[in-house]
């Protein structure tokens, strides 16, 4: 097979990948960016160039800011391979991907993994009913197709994206039946300890407060400190039931959008058997890297939300820092410190708000580890929390054995949607830390590929 080569191969055309590409091009490196979508921008800047002006106005200034990065990338001289599905990455920098119905190879002297974040699962009763979806997924529909819910929608959970989507829906004229917030007073108390640090990111803080204030000014029913969330319905969702201040509330709806933050998409870094640690503040796995993002002694770097949730601006800076380090290793940037200094400084500024956000929007235990045995954890193979707990009773030690005990995690999603829940459920049951329980052994293909793609 013909193997293309490049100095830097980047997987993912979101803020981290695009900024890394721009930075690497200024150093004269050859750059190839592989991305699954037909247009660059990642999830955050999805469709930013071709979105109609009215839609951009609804989505707000943070979204439009992506256009600048996208246009810098377009003139950077980096090669962009769109609609490319990466299914295998090796520590030496070799990538296998599918494009135009055929598997191909690309060999990077270095590879930057910038595959971004994914929505944290929200495993409560009824979450698999038709009509329940992630707020992030709903936002993708808004960005890519301008799609808005026709019926009044219920937003539930916590985290910046939930409020942002509520704000965007308001501006677009969509009807919001209720915003059900799981954030409790105790969360504000805990988060307040990190407020001083967060003030360094005062612009971000002000934006967030602005969103929430706008939602409060509207006529939306806002419920805060909610617990015992349950999606009700037989064939599809009919209502969201929950408790607030000791009373039961039930809000009928045909569309329930849930969200409790995003987590790093670590499938690629797991697949190369990189070391990962459990981030106790963000309650998720993150790959262990050096300050530039390099994975051990490999040809691989990680930047952006797939390394640790930092947001779009910090992701871009991490991408630039990784590019500088790679340039340094390839000998085109002998002294990295001068060029890196301002980036390291802005990285500090952009991430200063994180401890505050992590504390404030820490997803509730009951919404991460299902209380009810009935809750489906593995959607592909329909394995429930009760079954997983029974497997533990039979001697199942960790996620890899849940496959053997009951096909948990063996469906097409490769455990992306259930992995965190399975790890935390087993950890709780065995009274261990998630770090002691571990994660699925992720193997290629990272994404499902057609067998026919291997045949000429």
């Amino acid at each position, binding site marked *: 097979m013909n193997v293309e080569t490049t100095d830097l191969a980047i997987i993912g055309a979101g803020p981290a990948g695009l900024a890394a590409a721009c930075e690497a091009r200024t150093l004269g490196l050859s750059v190839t960016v592989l991305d699954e979508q037909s247009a660059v921008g990642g999830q955050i800047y999805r469709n930013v160039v071709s979105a109609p002006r009215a839609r951009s106005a609804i989505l707000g200034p943070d979204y439009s800011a992506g256009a600048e990065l996208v246009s810098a990338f377009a003139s950077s001289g980096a090669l962009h391979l769109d609609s490319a599905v990466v299914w295998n990455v090796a520590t030496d920098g070799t990538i296998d991907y599918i494009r135009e119905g055929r598997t191909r190879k690309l060999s990077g002297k270095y590879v930057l993994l910038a595959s971004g974040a994914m929505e944290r699962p929200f495993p409560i009763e009824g979450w698999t009913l038709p009509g329940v979806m992630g707020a992030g997924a709903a936002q993708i529909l808004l960005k890519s197709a301008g799609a808005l819910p026709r019926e009044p929608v219920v937003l539930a959970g916590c985290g910046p994206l939930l409020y942002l989507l509520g704000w965007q829906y308001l501006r677009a004229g969509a009807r919001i039946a209720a915003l059900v917030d799981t954030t409790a007073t105790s969360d504000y108390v805990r988060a307040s300890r990190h407020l001083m640090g967060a003030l360094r990111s005062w612009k971000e803080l002000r934006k967030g407060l602005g969103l929430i204030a706008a939602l409060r000014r509207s006529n939306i029913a806002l419920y805060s400190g909610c617990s015992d969330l349950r999606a009700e319905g037989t064939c599809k969702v009919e209502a969201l039931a929950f408790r607030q201040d000791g009373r039961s509330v039930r809000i009928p709806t045909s569309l329930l959008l849930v969200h409790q933050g995003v987590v790093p998409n670590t499938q690629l870094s797991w697949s190369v058997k990189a070391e990962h640690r459990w981030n106790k503040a963000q309650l998720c796995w993150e790959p262990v890297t050096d300050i530039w993002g390099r994975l051990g002694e490999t040809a691989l770097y990680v930047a952006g939300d797939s390394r640790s949730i930092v947001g779009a601006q910090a992701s871009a800076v991490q991408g630039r820092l990784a590019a500088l380090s790679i340039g340094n290793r390839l000998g085109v940037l002998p002294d990295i410190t001068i060029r890196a200094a301002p980036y390291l400084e802005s990285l500090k500024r952009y991430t200063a708000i994180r401890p505050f956000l992590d504390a404030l929007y820490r997803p509730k235990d009951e919404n991460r580890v299902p209380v009810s045995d009935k809750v489906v954890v593995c959607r592909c193979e329909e394995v429930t929390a009760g079954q997983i707990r029974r497997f533990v009773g*039979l001697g199942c*030690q960790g996620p*890899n054995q849940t496959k*053997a005990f009951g096909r948990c995690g063996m469906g*097409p999603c490769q455990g992306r949607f259930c992995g965190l829940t399975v790890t935390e459920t087993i950890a709780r049951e065995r009274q261990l830390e998630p770090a002691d329980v571990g994660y699925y052994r992720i*193997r290629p*293909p990272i994404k499902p590929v*057609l*067998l026919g793609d*291997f045949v000429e």
Partner: protein
Amino acid sequence: MSDRMIVIGGGLVGAAVAFGAAREGLGVCVLDQGDSAFRASRGNFGLVWVSSKGAEMPRYAAWSRDALKLWPDLQRELQELTGVDSGLRQVGGFWLGFSDKEMKARYELLSGISRAVDGIPFRMMEPSELRHYLPGLGPKVAGGSFCELDGDANPLMLLRALHSGLIEKGADIVSNVDVVQVRYDQSNGVFEAVAADGQRWQAERLVLAAGLGNARLAPQVGLQAPVKPSRGQVLITERLQPFLHYPMNKLRQTVEGSVQIGSSSEDVGFDDGTTPDVIEWQVKRAVAAFPALAKARLVRAWGALRPLAPDAYPIYEESESCPGAFVVTSHSGVTLAAAHCYVIGPWAAGLSQTPPDFADFSAERFRDPNKSFSHAH
């Protein structure tokens, strides 16, 4: 001392032998590793198969044949005891050839085994006849062979059934144990297993069923298990409508609907990863066999390490210097499950005589310095 037998290894081999002893009333303790162990059982292709086995060791061909006959009893017993279905289907199985040369070699191999061992019938088939059983076969298939004894099972469910059965029979299964040392006290005839973390277990009998771990443990009790890893890569598709009603040696559709493609044999040490070139080669062959598979999605690939003796045949042996210690090593944990349970279990428990002609399975065969081994299996 409550346990009379320690079994090191909770994979398909260890669990089957342990269950065979426990069902006879013996107190059994199974010591199993943690979540990230190599676990060949998890990567097993799932065939219950005799065709082409034992060309150079007729005793092994007969042993596999007899194991197949015992399998329905094991399936029934585990189902009744635990409610877990091991998924046994003994409907006959096919091998596919892609050239006349492959067909000729296959015929010679199978007829040689058939001459040496009774009761292993086979039939060579032209593509036209194959298509009667395997609709959708591609034009590149030159022919095939069929054996009515062959079939398949679900290795994961078998493992789960054996573990549940062990618990039902009162056996102890201790997980997360990495046994680093085994020793024998000649004065009282007691074996002791010592784990890396210092835990210890004692019993009158000891079965080493630790797969690749046997190589290190066996010499400590006067046994030999010169096993080395042989990697098999297996691919699995999304669930498809049932279209393959018979298993093939490199391709089968599971009850759930997914199609398994495999399994390679590679000498790559302890690397249980997957490689794009092997994945590609296996996919090409599967699509050549059944062109409609081109439209199926590949959702998973995995590599697993078979514990393989130099001649790829099992090792079953009791220690002469440490009586009561047994080594059990085989990479055919599914095919041989019922024989491991109903024959090896009682033997290792001291409840039955050594089965006939078992000297053939002794590791003695590797001590001849002038002998070289082929790796066919």
